């Protein structure tokens, strides 16, 4: 067998590859500049005692921002109750929110997949919550959830479901619920669209066969549809989970500085901007980044194992 089959590629191929790198370089430079460099700096700051008003005079302090034992007490982000509170909030929020969005999104997608008059209008309407800026959603819902003048309390009171108006955004028990409500409202359209796209790519012959066999539609759904859209569904869920871990806008605007809803991002920013503790805040940011990165890597490696195994 000719062992020269792995020769150096010809001039034409090399030219093409060179052109490709030429095209890539501007984008890569910009990406390194706006993403790589700031990330590196943030991680760097996390190892210093930097103060936001005076970044150049930072001293290297190792991992003290993360965890340090000093005169009988643990200090650092990992020892801060508020941080773990934020972590717990974020996880609670992410899991509940994404679960609800997936379920509701599934329902909406199934509805939109059925042909009916006015379907285009409904699909357009469904897109609107997604397109509205998060801030505007937060304000709109903030108004609806207003304890005194909010319409939600008004409806619940007049239906007799509650005795007194609820302070949605202020009371500790309800604040996270309020945030979840708004996020579900805002993101269900995105899930619905992704699931709809997956549904529309399904082959119709399974369904026709099932219909001829007289299988009940619910059974068809669980035994045929669901397994087929599971890959796309999983991708959507992972994307949303990774997104939800980073939540900031909604919480900040709807329930500012409430410790019951503070997410990791809010915590980090608070340390960074409100308290000007650049080193400490960067440590929190880095931890959040590592969490998201870990989840992403896990997903990719698990996902790849799955593909190779098929």
């Amino acid at each position, binding site marked *: 067998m000719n062992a020269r089959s792995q020769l150096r590629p010809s001039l034409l191929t090399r030219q093409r*590859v060179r*052109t*490709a790198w030429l*095209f*890539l370089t*501007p*984008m*890569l430079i*910009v*990406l390194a*500049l*706006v*993403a790589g*460099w*700031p*990330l590196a700096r*943030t991680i760097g700051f996390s190892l210093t005692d930097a103060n936001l008003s005076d*970044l150049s005079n930072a001293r290297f302090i190792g991992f003290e921002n993360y965890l340090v034992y000093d005169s009988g007490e643990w200090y650092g982000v990992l020892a801060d109750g508020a941080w773990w509170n934020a972590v717990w909030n974020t996880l609670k929020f992410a899991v509940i929110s994404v679960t609800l969005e997936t379920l509701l999104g599934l*329902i909406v997608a199934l509805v939109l997949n059925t042909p*009916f008059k006015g379907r285009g209008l*409904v699909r*357009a*309407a*469904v*897109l*609107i*919550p*997604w*397109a*509205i*800026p998060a*801030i*505007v959603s937060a*304000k*709109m819902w903030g*108004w609806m959830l*207003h304890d005194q*003048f909010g*319409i939600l309390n*008004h409806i619940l009171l007049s239906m007799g479901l509650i005795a007194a108006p609820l302070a949605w955004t202020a009371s500790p028990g309800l604040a996270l619920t309020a945030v979840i409500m708004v996020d579900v*409202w805002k993101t269900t359209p*995105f899930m619905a669209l*992704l699931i*709809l796209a*997956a549904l529309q790519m399904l082959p119709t012959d399974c369904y026709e066969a099932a219909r001829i066999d007289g299988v009940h539609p619910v059974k068809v759904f669980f035994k045929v549809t669901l397994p087929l859209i599971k890959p796309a569904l999983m*991708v*959507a869920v992972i994307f949303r989970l990774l997104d939800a871990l*980073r939540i900031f806008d909604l919480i*900040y605007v709807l329930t500012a500085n409430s410790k019951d809803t503070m997410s990791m*991002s809010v915590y*980090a*920013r608070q340390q960074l901007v409100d308290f000007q503790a650049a080193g400490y*805040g*960067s440590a*929190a*940011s*880095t931890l*959040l980044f590592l969490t*998201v990165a870990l989840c*992403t890597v896990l997903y990719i490696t698990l996902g790849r194992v799955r593909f190779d195994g098929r």
Partner: protein
Amino acid sequence: MKRFMSRLGFYLLVAAIMLYTVFPFYYAIVTSFKTGPELFSADYFPLRWNWDNYISVFREQSFAHTIFNSVQVSFAVVAVSLFLGVTAAFALGRVQFRGRGLLLLTVLGVSMFPQVAVLSGMFELIRCLGLYNHLPGLVISYLIFTLPFTVWVLTTFMRDLPKELEEAAIMDGATPWDIIIKVFLPLMWPALVTTGLLAFIAAWNEFLFALTFTLSNTQRTVPVAIALISGASQHELPWGNIMAASVTVTLPVAGLVLIFQRRIVSGLTAGAVKG
């Protein structure tokens, strides 16, 4: 009878979905027409067409200027992202080279960065470039999330263009740049519109960076301006004004979405499902 009931149930479900998605926005519109004590009562329909809130938002909050800021920033971000994205997408989508897969994963990885994770670093960078409290600073910082997404979606579209078309152009003596500009771009304009639209919406809605990197009212973008609308005292938010501002900002975006809904949907799904 059973079919009628199931159809009725179906349409009730549709109505519920419509109500759920549209009501908050509708209610915001209703509220935007109320002033003073009218806000204290919950009404489902506008009491009267009172434009006071809108006028005050524009006059007192210089909202028009804010909107203009957002428009400038968003357009600039879209332009830069598309330009860098198209060339990168050609390389990533159509040329085989070592490290391509890794590069694509890296680009995707960047889109997973939490914004706070780059906040301090970005803050320093923007201050260094002297762009703190200037709109170009926002444009640069927004690239961190528009660029990866744009590259990813455009790469998918570039990959799907027929190989024979490119080969015919090569036989005609076209350089890769010729091929992009003269052959692919005219065929890709739906993808460009889609990606541009999605990038525009993302830039328009961005909050954290705009909050952190701008200071004065003249440099505010819309989301920050709305979030910071405050009243006479700390607990008296001018809800009428806030709703008026919200409606003003949402109408064009909703309009864009309605017109381009097919494109937006295909762009989103191309990015996520195919990827």
